[in-house]
């Protein structure tokens, strides 16, 4: 590449975010390396989604700095679609547009290209996420949960952004579909060289696809590292999370 590669795709320093009197993120720092899949775990309502939404600029921060691919984030996020793709928890597909139009939307808004090429790219993306060309003319209301997530992923990837944010990508999917989705994310990450920031509760996803896992507790990142390191962590919340009854059972069965 022409410009020197930064080592980190996302750098968060001393981030403070709160609503009213409640502080959700308290001087949080986090680095996401270029080309890795980082899983973020945390208690429900503990600020995982808040962290993600702050990084992508949806929630204002009180202090601290956020750099995404060497550019600091603040104010309106112009040209954001070329920098990152976001998979929202419920898909957030535009319900008045067909699947094809949903995928073409970022292309149409950001680039000047012929309708023919746009159609081909939309179908290409659709097939890359494991759907078929016949699905292109359906409306979001006609899609199943798994298909909605796949279409949302195709839309997030429409412009080949270097960073992909996933908010609970496997929630609401059956284990087979969730496993397929994990594999899909892994494959796409390798082929497209993506950096993936994934908020998830799915222990299976954490073990199989994530290169590193970060644990968020009390508004801070209390542990970060590969899964096996986190399992050794002494932090009480992290221990409770990974060594609770439910987690133990899953890990035993996975062995």
């Amino acid at each position: 590449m022409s410009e020197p590669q930064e080592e980190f795709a996302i750098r968060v320093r001393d981030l403070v975010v709160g609503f009213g009197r409640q502080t959700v993120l308290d001087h949080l720092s986090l680095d996401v390396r270029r080309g890795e899949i980082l899983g973020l775990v945390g208690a429900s309502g503990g600020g995982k989604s808040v962290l993600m939404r702050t990084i992508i600029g949806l929630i204002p921060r009180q202090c601290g700095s956020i750099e995404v691919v060497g550019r600091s984030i603040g104010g309106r996020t112009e040209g954001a679609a070329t920098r990152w793709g976001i998979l929202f928890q419920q898909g957030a597909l535009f319900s008045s547009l067909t699947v094809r139009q949903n995928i073409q939307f970022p292309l149409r808004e950001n680039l000047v290209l012929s309708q023919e090429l746009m159609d081909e790219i939309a179908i290409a993306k659709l097939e890359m996420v494991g759907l078929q060309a016949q699905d292109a003319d359906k409306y979001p209301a006609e899609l199943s949960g798994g298909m909605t997530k796949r279409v949302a992923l195709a839309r997030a990837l429409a412009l080949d952004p270097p960073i992909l944010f996933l908010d609970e990508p496997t929630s609401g999917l059956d284990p087979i579909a969730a496993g397929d989705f994990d594999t899909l994310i892994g494959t796409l990450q390798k082929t497209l060289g993506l950096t993936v920031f994934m908020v998830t509760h799915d222990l299976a996803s954490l073990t199989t696809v994530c290169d590193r896992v970060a644990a968020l507790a009390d508004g801070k990142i209390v542990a970060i590292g590969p899964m096996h390191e986190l399992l050794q962590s002494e932090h009480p919340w992290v221990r409770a999370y990974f060594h609770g009854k439910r987690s133990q059972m899953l890990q035993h069965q996975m062995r």
Partner: protein
Amino acid sequence: MNLEPLLLATPSGDALKLRPEGPWTAANVATLETLSRSVGAEVDQSRAVTLDMSGISALDTLGAWVLEKLSRRAASAGRPAEFVGVADHFSGLLDEVRQVNRHTPVAAPALNPVLLRLNNLGKSTVDAREDVAVFLQMLGALSMAVIGVLRRPKSLRLTSLVYQLYRVGWQAIPIVVLITFLIGAIIAQQGFFHFRRFGAESYTVDMVGILVLRELGVLIVAIMVAGRSGSAYTAELGSMKMREEIDALSTMGLDPIHVLILPRVAALVIALPILAFIGSVAALYGGGLVAQFYGGMAPAIYIARLHDAISVTHFEVGILKAPFMALVIGIVACSEGLRVKGSAESLGRQTTTSVVKSIFLVIVLDGLFAIFFASIGM
């Protein structure tokens, strides 16, 4: 380094060597399209095509697809096309792109436009029949619910009914009063203006009184209620349907008709006559003010003339229509709400349908009542 993508074409004998250079990414899509179009003819003429990928500095799905399309263009005519010098980190992407767009979906055959029209006509006929069925179904379900309540009066959702009455009745009073007041004033002004030419100004009062009490008071109020409360009912029930709240109710053994729809429709049936009465009085008051300040008629004379011109019959004719109109508005609004499907667009469409349909039905009903009352001599 190179900021613009390039495509160098070097013919060697029958073969063609293409060497793309620079960043082949979505940001440069306009250039990429021009480049690939410019070599199209050469690709068609040559025997074999080689794509030398070693000069590419950046590649994404879009760029890879444009190159893949070139190679397919060559391959489609039976000429071999191959990629050489592919960097390791691009090979995965190229392999992936090679898999896509292989199956062109079969487009649905275009229908004959005449047939299409006929098809649509048939569909809308069936839809209209379905509309009638849905209306009757809702009327039946409501009647059953009413019978249930009559049998066990305690099962009436009184809190809900009172709350709906507050919303569609009490809160609607200011706007209803304002609009009907203005309508009454306008009719009176027109009456004075035009009747003055015949010296029949005093008959303006008869016109205002009869028109307002028999027709306009109740009709205007019904149309406003359809727009104000009918649309709210449809949107509420529609979004409850979307969020599966109605299904949740049914699974708990409760009848949504009984819990949600009966209080709403009953509130409308109670509120609309009251609103129509208040509206009519406001319209008469508006007419009276115009009579005083525009027509120069003293209030006492206005009231005396009104007393002569109108009778309880006129008032009855108007007010008797109100509960039926309320029933129509309520049934249409609630059944359209229950017909909402998953999307936000469907909610909007159903709300529009609800308002348009209930206003239409209210006016049709008013016409039918006019004929009915005329024939029984009221």
